[in-house]
């Protein structure tokens, strides 16, 4: 309870403050004395300026609209001499005019678009049908015609010749390298076989001698 009372008391002490007018006067006096330019305005100053004015205007406009709408509807059926007739003349008529203008603009736009569509359709239907074969020819012709002619025929032939000779040279070069490589591999193979011959000859001789011995033994045993 005491804590609650204490908090309440402190809150009441905190509520002691100056009025906005007092603050503004003191602030202006301070700025004047110090020569500080009003570079930034305080929150309590900005709140009371444009924002509040805009809000008042918006609210009043809304209230006006809400207030006038039922009367405007009621005035629609009024005749000259009725109480609501001036409202019909002053409000309903201009609003109707404006709406009619908007509607007219829309209608005209729609009409124009519709007319355009019809014209397009008519144009398409009036076209003479082209046979499929003709269409192909025309297409290829147009394709050829549209291709840009970059070089003269002589130049193109020269280019082809030069590229052919180049490829020929390249081919010959490749063949030469292949031949040389084949030659090298043959040489190495021959060399290898030459190196192996003495050993094989010896073994052959050995085999032959053993065979002879075996044969001789067989003969002897027989």
């Amino acid at each position, binding site marked *: 309870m005491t804590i609650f*009372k204490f908090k309440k008391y402190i809150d009441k002490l905190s509520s002691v*403050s100056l009025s906005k007018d007092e603050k503004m006067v*003191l602030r202006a006096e*301070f*700025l004047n004395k110090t020569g500080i330019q009003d*570079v930034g305005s*305080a929150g309590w100053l900005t709140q009371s300026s444009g924002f509040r004015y805009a809000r008042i205007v918006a609210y009043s406009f809304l209230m006006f609209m809400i207030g006038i709408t039922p009367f405007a509807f009621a005035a629609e059926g009024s005749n000259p001499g009725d109480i609501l007739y001036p409202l019909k003349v002053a409000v309903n008529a201009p609003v109707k005019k404006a709406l009619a203008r908007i509607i007219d603009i829309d209608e005209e736009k729609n009409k124009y678009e519709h007319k355009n569509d019809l014209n397009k359709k008519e144009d398409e239907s009036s076209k003479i049908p082209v046979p499929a074969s003709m269409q192909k020819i025309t297409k290829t012709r147009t394709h050829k015609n549209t291709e840009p002619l970059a070089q003269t025929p002589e130049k193109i032939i020269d280019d082809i010749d030069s590229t052919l000779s180049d490829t020929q040279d390249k081919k010959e070069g490749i063949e030469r390298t292949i031949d040389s490589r084949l030659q090298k591999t043959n040489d190495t193979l021959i060399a290898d076989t030459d190196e192996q011959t003495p050993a094989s000859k010896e073994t052959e001789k050995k085999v032959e001698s053993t065979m002879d011995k075996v044969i001789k033994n067989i003969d002897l045993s027989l």
Partner: protein
Amino acid sequence: MNAKIQKKFIELYDSHFTPVFRFCYFRTKDRELSKDLTQQAFLKTWVSLQNNQDIENIRAFVYRVAHNLVIDWYKKKKEASLEILTDAGFDPIDESQHPESDASYGELIKILDELPKKERSLIVLRHVDKMKPREIAEVLGRDVNSVTVAIHRATKKLKEILKRKNTI
């Protein structure tokens, strides 16, 4: 002076004018005088800034200047209690001039008046202005430990007074 410093100082002025005013008001109990003292405190701080005085904590500095101004005012004028002032026709809150003021402000000040002067300042600085004991020590020119103890005592006393009173 640099435009940035000017802007910062005006921001400080806007945000701290009312708390400093309150600090002065609860001690002088005079609205107009408190306004004047607060304005003077800010002007003196601005002059100190212009003289390139080394200010570590500008908020505490403003409060310290205000505190010194109040002491000077006390020295010049004999201190009068609220009762004497009211008997003499002084109204601390003229509600016709300040319609937003609460009618119970007089009672609030009466309660605060039951505390010694130093404790009043401590209550206002600690609980109303939400200052830290370190800052309060800086403002009052005392050490932090003694300030912390004094705040505790003052709060306890105020709670006892409020317990006795039924007006709040």
